[in-house]
């Protein structure tokens, strides 16, 4: 399937590279493209080097990692749960992470490292809780996908309540900070954050790609999968955990960036990819492109302010998705 659509891949890679260069070359301060390229290699005047290397490059890299992680997470979950509405935040990741972060904000913590840690811890607790509930409630001790979805939704609702209680009487700047965090932003990009995120995304992504055949089989249904010799429970659980890890890592690094994980796998499927190995690769590439483009829009559309990344991903993603949907219909 890959070979006769190889021009799709070339085009996707080209678009990704162009978007990344645009992301590094564009910003409030004008830096000519030639200087940008020189600055990337470490020559030219020091202020251009600083702007390109310390300000823009980390944002582009962070945005690309977030997009790749969320899109792969979404693709794996949609396949395993056999549900096109599945998305990375489904298993309570977003709610749990938001509770962790918001509670940290409410206690007056504003160090981004601690907030990231609190968000990750919150997401981990929520996902484990959802998996445990699904397992306890599932038929004969098995994790039933539908129960899992319900558990995720309910935990999400509970998380929302906790967030509202924490923020109801918080000082204005705390509320603004917490809301900003919940709307997602790549503005806090540092090489340290990128390092941790890259490890999680590359590790988790590689593991999912390794399990891609299992996802293919699980996508056929539990019984056919069992008939084909897949340990359904174990594989599914591993995939849920890996997907949740990817999502939680992105949330810890940049808050909630909605829509990417839901939509990108569909876009890639419309392009003709059905098997999960190429689907995961393709999702990573398109997801990265979408979020880099969205971050570029977020920091340039309304100067001198920045827009929330999560809102921009949705604004950019929806028309693209609808166009694809029409073409496919």
């Amino acid at each position: 399937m890959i070979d006769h659509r190889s021009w799709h891949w070339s085009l996707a890679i080209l678009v990704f590279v162009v978007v990344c260069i645009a992301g590094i070359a564009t910003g409030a301060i004008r830096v000519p493209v030639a200087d940008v390229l020189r600055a990337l290699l470490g020559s030219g005047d020091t202020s251009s080097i600083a702007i390109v290397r310390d300000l823009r490059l980390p944002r582009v890299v962070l945005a690309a990692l977030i997009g790749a992680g969320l899109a792969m997470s979404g693709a794996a979950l949609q396949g395993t749960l056999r549900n096109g509405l599945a998305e990375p935040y489904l298993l309570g990741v977003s709610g749990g992470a938001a509770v962790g972060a918001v509670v940290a904000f409410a206690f007056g913590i504003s160090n981004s490292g601690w907030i990231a840690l609190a968000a990750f811890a919150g997401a981990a607790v929520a996902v484990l809780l959802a998996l445990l509930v699904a397992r306890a409630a599932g038929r004969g001790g098995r994790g039933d996908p539908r129960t899992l979805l319900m558990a995720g939704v309910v935990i999400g609702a509970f998380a929302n309540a906790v967030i509202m209680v924490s923020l109801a009487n918080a000082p204005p700047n705390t509320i603004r900070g917490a809301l900003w965090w919940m709307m997602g932003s790549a503005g806090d990009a540092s090489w340290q954050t990128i390092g941790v995120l890259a490890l999680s995304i590359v590790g988790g992504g590689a593991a999912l790609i390794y399990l891609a055949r299992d996802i293919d089989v699980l996508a056929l249904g539990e019984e056919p999968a069992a008939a084909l010799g897949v340990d359904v429970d174990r594989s599914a659980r591993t995939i849920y955990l890996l997907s949740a890890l990817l999502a939680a890592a992105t949330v810890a690094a940049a808050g909630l960036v909605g829509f990417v994980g839901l939509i990108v796998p569909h876009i890639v499927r419309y392009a003709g990819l059905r098997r999960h190995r190429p689907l995961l690769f393709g999702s990573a590439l398109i997801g990265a492109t979408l979020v880099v483009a969205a971050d570029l829009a977020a920091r340039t559309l309304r100067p001198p302010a920045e827009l929330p990344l999560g809102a921009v991903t949705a604004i950019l993603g929806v028309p693209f998705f609808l166009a694809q949907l029409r073409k496919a219909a």
Partner: protein
Amino acid sequence: MPVLRTRILVIAFVALGVACARKDAQTPATSLTDDFGDTIVVGPRPTRIVSLNPATTEIMFAIGAGDRLVGRTHWDLYPAAAAKVPDLGTGIRPNIEAVLGARPQLVLLYASVDNRNAAQRFRAAGVNTLSLKTDRIEHFFRATQLIGLLVGDTARAKLVADSVRKSIESVRAKTSGLPKPTVFWHIWDAPLITIGGGSYMSQLIDIAGGTNIYGDRPDVSPQVSIEDVIKRNPTYIITGPEGADKIKKDPKWAIAPAVKAGRVIVVDTALVGRPAVRLGEAAIALASLIHPKDFTR
């Protein structure tokens, strides 16, 4: 008989005098209009007052009416005596019942959209409610005057306003001949929030002999991007102790020439954080930070 006539005359004159005096006392303002456009009748001197705005709480204490406060916001830190007044919450969308439970005769509210409903409810419950904006220096003077009028102490109110005005004007006079370096005020880091021309803090920078790089923005607290700040290249970055700590640790801020040159000014956020009775002190503090060599109290 003549004695009696004189007495009658005296009584008549006194009566007339009293009538005139009473009329005089009432005419300056029998009623006034607040920032929600509500009309507040100046009635008998209120003895139970709730202030749901840290700035008006400061004013109450400054004009000597602090002992009549029966409620304040959670954020009222100054003066220290304010801590003894019962805490009635954040002051935005207040708990109506909690406020009415303090049985106030006058409520002082911050006039933001969030509080419109509360003002209407307090008024419906028969409580005089004065809603005032306190975003700019002129708002402070107006608030002081109106509160003085309502609590029945116009003389003290005038004294307070005059003293603040005097110290502000003295700072302005001293800095008027000095160069006006550009200043970026770092309020919050994620999102990056600064102060716009609509804020009294932008006015304070101007009085203290600086230029706010976002003074062109009409809003009170605009959100900006770090790259835009670097582009506007402020000479100084003003922030609180926590913000300074973050700026020093963040490699992104290291690009800004002001940070490279160590021109990060740390202010006492409690002092400059309210458009109230310490505005003069705040102006002095800022001027001595922006012009360490040329400005002397």
